[in-house]
């Protein structure tokens, strides 16, 4: 075999392999394009049907209750319900999740108890959300007699997002350099003072990001709330909105915790399950509002992550 022939063979083999490379790049871009197009189709299909419905005699859609007539039906009870459930969820998940995260990261000794808790947190993240609904139905609703209330719903969603909050808290604490801890100890701080005064303020940004991502997941959750019986026709608000002082006092009385409720995703599910096309317009309108709510929350989380990363230099 002559040298020229060998060089030619190597050359053609190389160009053949480079061609396969180029083909893969195209395949990869097509795969990405498909994912992006699906996302765009999803958003436009919702917007085309939903935006006209939501903005038709604006803002009635946002301030009327559910109705048997699709054109008279609105999402007032749903978005107020979502907001109140989120208040309960945040007030439960944040203290519990952050405390658990601090314990696991700063206090836990390496033994079987902490191993058990760690494996548990990972496993809980993989439990289907509807199972949390069954837990709420059996334990919170029937067992503890909390009823089909905002309180039950809020606690259910809090348990659901607890793993997210715990994991992000741990990551936030882990990112803080040892020198900061040593400096606090050096001036005589106890472990808890060191954590509370020096570590937590720096970790707040990252923890907040994780909390918002958890809440944006919770606000879109439907299945666990259907099992506790939230799919009811609600034509009143759990809080008094006649005036601002009336709202504040009825909010602070906490009577709303025991009220029945509906939330945005359940309202949408209710409408999308009906055969009449007019109700499906309503479903699209509720969907676009829900999508904007979750996108806004995700956007805030991404912004916070960016800001806190930029602000802190070790």
């Amino acid at each position, binding site marked *: 075999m002559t040298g020229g022939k060998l060089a030619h063979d190597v050359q053609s083999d190389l160009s053949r392999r480079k061609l396969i490379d180029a083909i893969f790049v195209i395949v*990869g871009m097509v795969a990405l394009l498909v994912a992006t197009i699906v996302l765009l189709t999803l958003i436009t299909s919702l917007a085309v049907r939903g935006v006209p419905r939501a903005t038709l005699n604006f803002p009635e859609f946002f301030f009327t209750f559910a109705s048997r007539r699709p054109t008279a039906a609105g999402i007032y009870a749903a978005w107020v319900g979502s907001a109140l459930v989120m208040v309960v969820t945040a007030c439960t998940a944040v203290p519990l999740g952050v405390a658990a995260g601090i314990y696991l990261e700063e206090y836990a000794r390496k033994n079987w108890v902490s191993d058990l808790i760690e494996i548990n947190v990972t496993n809980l993240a993989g439990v289907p959300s509807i199972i949390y609904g069954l837990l709420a139905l059996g334990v919170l609703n029937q067992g503890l007699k909390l009823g089909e209330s905002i309180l039950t719903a809020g606690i259910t969603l809090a348990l659901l997002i607890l793993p997210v909050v715990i994991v992000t808290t741990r990551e936030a604490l882990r990112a803080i350099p040892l020198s900061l801890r040593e400096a606090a100890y050096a001036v005589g701080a106890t472990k808890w003072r060191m954590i509370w005064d020096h570590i937590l303020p720096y970790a707040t940004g990252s923890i907040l990001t994780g909390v918002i991502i958890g809440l944006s997941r919770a606000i879109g959750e439907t*299945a666990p709330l259907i099992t506790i019986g939230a799919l009811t026709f609600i034509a009143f608000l759990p809080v008094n909105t006649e005036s601002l002082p009336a709202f504040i006092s009825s909010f602070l009385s906490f009577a709303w915790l025991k009220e029945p409720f509906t939330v945005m995703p359940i309202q949408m599910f209710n409408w999308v399950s009906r055969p009449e096309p007019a109700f499906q317009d309503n479903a699209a309108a509720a969907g676009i509002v829900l999508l904007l709510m979750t996108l806004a929350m995700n956007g805030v989380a991404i912004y916070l992550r960016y800001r806190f990363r930029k602000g802190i230099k070790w």
Partner: protein
Amino acid sequence: MVSPAAPRRSFEFKASRNIVGKVIEIILFLAASISVVTTIAIVVDLIYESIPFFQVAGLWQFLTGREWGPVFEPPKYGILPLVSGTLTTTIVALLLAIPMGTIIAMYLSEFAPAQVREIVKPILELLAGVPTVVYGYFALLVVTPALQLVLKDLPGFNMLSAGLVIGIMIVPTISSISEDAMRAVPVSLREGSYATGATRLQTALRVVFPAAISGISSSYILGISRAVGETMVVAVAAGLQYRLTFNPAESAATITAYIVQVSIGDLPYGSIPYQSVFAAGLVLVFMTLVLNVIGHFLSKRYREIY
């Protein structure tokens, strides 16, 4: 001058600080144990509520029966139709999500310029952030009509469109975790491969992919687990027929869809349909638990040490 009482006071001060520290530690520990309590509560609740159901239905009949319908007259207690529906939608979802997720991950990690990656990752995260009920709407009112243009006989409710939409939904899960795993492979391994004359794709397939297989396989397991447990898409778009079939062009019910369907009607506490929901939930938890254990085993078995 230091007064004689000072050392003593500081000792007391230290002791009280220790007590406060101990109390705080116990409070934090209690918060951390909530996760264990939740797990125990889930298992105990599901078993406790479904025992009366198994006493009526019989465990063997439940696991092998080919007809399901606890609210029918006469009632049928075979879970297999729900299991077949769950498996079919999951398989359809995975046939889409695993190749697509892996290709996207490999493209982003090994081929794409840094700017493309910076733009694409947040877009994929948005796909993951869309509420599942919105995906249900999308499957029923956009994907099914589109599929019917090609497959004329496709019914309005079918497992194919539900499965495809679940697939799209779990692409970000798979691609994001797989990409992290591939990017964690040291550059020296790639350089070694290039030095032997391998192209980028050959390096990606034969060096990076095997080195990252533990992370990639756990992303697959997580994706499967999410597809098995997905509820709203199937509840909206798959139809709620209890049918023992593996044909994705038919309508059928999954375990999760059954739970939703029965929950919408008012459940009299303690009735057999009420308890059947918990029995179905028990099967679902068992399926995801098996997947988690396999995932744990796989990631240990195939962990490469660089």
